[in-house]
């Protein structure tokens, strides 16, 4: 018998976090036995209005439609879990918040008449109460499983706020910032991915958002000191989780003002 009912909702997003459900493998079958999945369009279940115990919400609030939908989702769900960088911080599309988005749209589309989007991309928690945030771009299947397990037991899951460096060192990786002067943001990024990129020799670029106590000033200074151009350092901080305050501050500090660029 199902112990709870769940829904998986989508706002403005790439559907990558929903796919994590579908990619759970055998655990997807287990999940289907443990809970009643009421609404999950990507899995072919369309019942948006269903009242559920747990609503997983992917995507940011970027359109008027997103605004209307999230209010309804909140009303019909006991527990709202924001999943992924978009739902938790506005996602990569929050870049529009720091630039002239109207100008951008004009440059990309021949005709902007049919675009209907808000001035900013916002995280779900700015509109409704969010009970839990699962970070990541996309979220981790392991954390998703731990979260469902914990919620079924009636407790909050234990989710890390420590830095990616911790997972990186446990994984036995060699620090790419130290050996290759790579612009790794692991020291200011929340753990959860299992240090995926550094495990393949690539620097971290903040998929899981800001860690506890992110010292972006010191890390940014170091990267600039290693000879990485200031503008690259600035942009590094505002890629996937640009909506987060510590990253925005770092961006503001190292971006080269537009005036200087023109000259």
């Amino acid at each position, binding site marked *: 018998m199902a112990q709870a009912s769940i829904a998986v909702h989508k706002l403005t997003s790439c559907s990558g976090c929903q796919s994590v459900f579908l990619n759970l493998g055998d655990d997807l079958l287990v999940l289907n036995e443990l809970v009643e999945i009421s609404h999950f369009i990507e899995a072919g279940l369309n019942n948006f209005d269903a009242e559920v115990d747990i609503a997983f919400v992917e995507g940011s609030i970027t359109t008027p439609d997103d605004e209307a939908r999230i209010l309804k989702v909140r009303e019909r769900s006991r527990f709202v879990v924001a999943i992924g960088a978009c739902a938790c911080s506005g996602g990569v599309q929050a870049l529009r918040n720091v630039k002239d988005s109207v100008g951008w749209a004009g440059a990309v589309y021949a005709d902007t008449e049919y675009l209907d989007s808000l001035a900013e991309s916002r995280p779900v928690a700015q509109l409704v109460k969010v009970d839990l945030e699962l970070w990541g771009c996309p979220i981790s299947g392991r954390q998703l499983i731990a979260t469902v*397990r914990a919620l079924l*037991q*009636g*407790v*909050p899951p*234990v989710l890390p706020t420590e830095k990616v460096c911790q997972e990186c060192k446990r994984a036995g990786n060699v620090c790419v910032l130290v050996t290759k002067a790579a612009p790794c943001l692991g020291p200011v990024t929340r753990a959860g991915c299992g240090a995926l990129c550094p495990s393949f020799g690539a620097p971290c670029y903040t998929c899981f958002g800001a860690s506890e106590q992110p010292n972006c000033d010191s890390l940014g200074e170091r990267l600039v000191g290693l000879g990485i151009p200031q503008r690259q350092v600035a942009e590094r901080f505002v890629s996937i989780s640009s909506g987060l305050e510590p990253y925005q501050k770092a961006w503001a500090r190292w971006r080269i003002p537009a005036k200087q660029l023109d000259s």
Partner: protein
Amino acid sequence: MNDPWTPYSARVVERVVETPDVVTLSLRFTDPEVQQQYRFACGQFNMLYLFGLGEVPISIMDYQDGCLQHTIRAVGRVSRKLVALEPGAMIGLRGPYGNSWPLEAARGRDLVFITAGLGCAPVIAAIRRAIAERDAYRRLIIMQGVKHSEDLLWQAQYDRWREVPDCEVLLAASEEAKVPFAWSLGMVTTLIDKARFDPLNSTVMMCGPEPMMRASIRALENNGVAMDNCYFSLERNMQCALGLCGHCQMGSPFICKNGPIFRVSDVRDWFLLEGY
């Protein structure tokens, strides 16, 4: 025997609701042999485990009728679930860990207990032992502070202790407009000035929130009590209880293996410093 990390299966035998968020659980090991070998001393703690959730350190309130008693407040992820357990529920248990109150060394002296909130739980057994051997000690002073008088656990027990010869029971409530008869208004530290004990020939045992114990240390020092004769029970994020995980270090001591009970003068500097 299990290796030191591994808990033993135990069962909740009785659950007593003390206040809306405080519960006393009586526990017994599933394996009678384990139960039989179990010994504890006043002031020690156990690691209690809930399936799927993890372990938490909980001080042992007492051992009665073949059951270990733990008084638990619902404060964290695991403890909220612990207090909801009904008789028959299965849990994991390992222990006891840590040292105990210096009841032997305190023989022939005044015994002063200063506790606040749930801090009384780890000293209850010590008070009971002292009363059971009333003649071994001189005066007994029992001070307990709470926020509201109705928060006091075991009111009847405190009333009984008032009847013990030469035993002074002092209670204080800090957040109440009007306190009941025989109570004082304020923090437990205000009681220290009122209590009658010989500052030069007393052993003090304290347990409670750290700000309360810091204030008590100052009040005791003002009353001429040497910190060599004061003991308190400390708490940190104990995860292994084996002296291995490192979380409970407070300066040089590991609370789980060198404590939880310390002579105040031994750790005074670390304790008074913020951020250790």
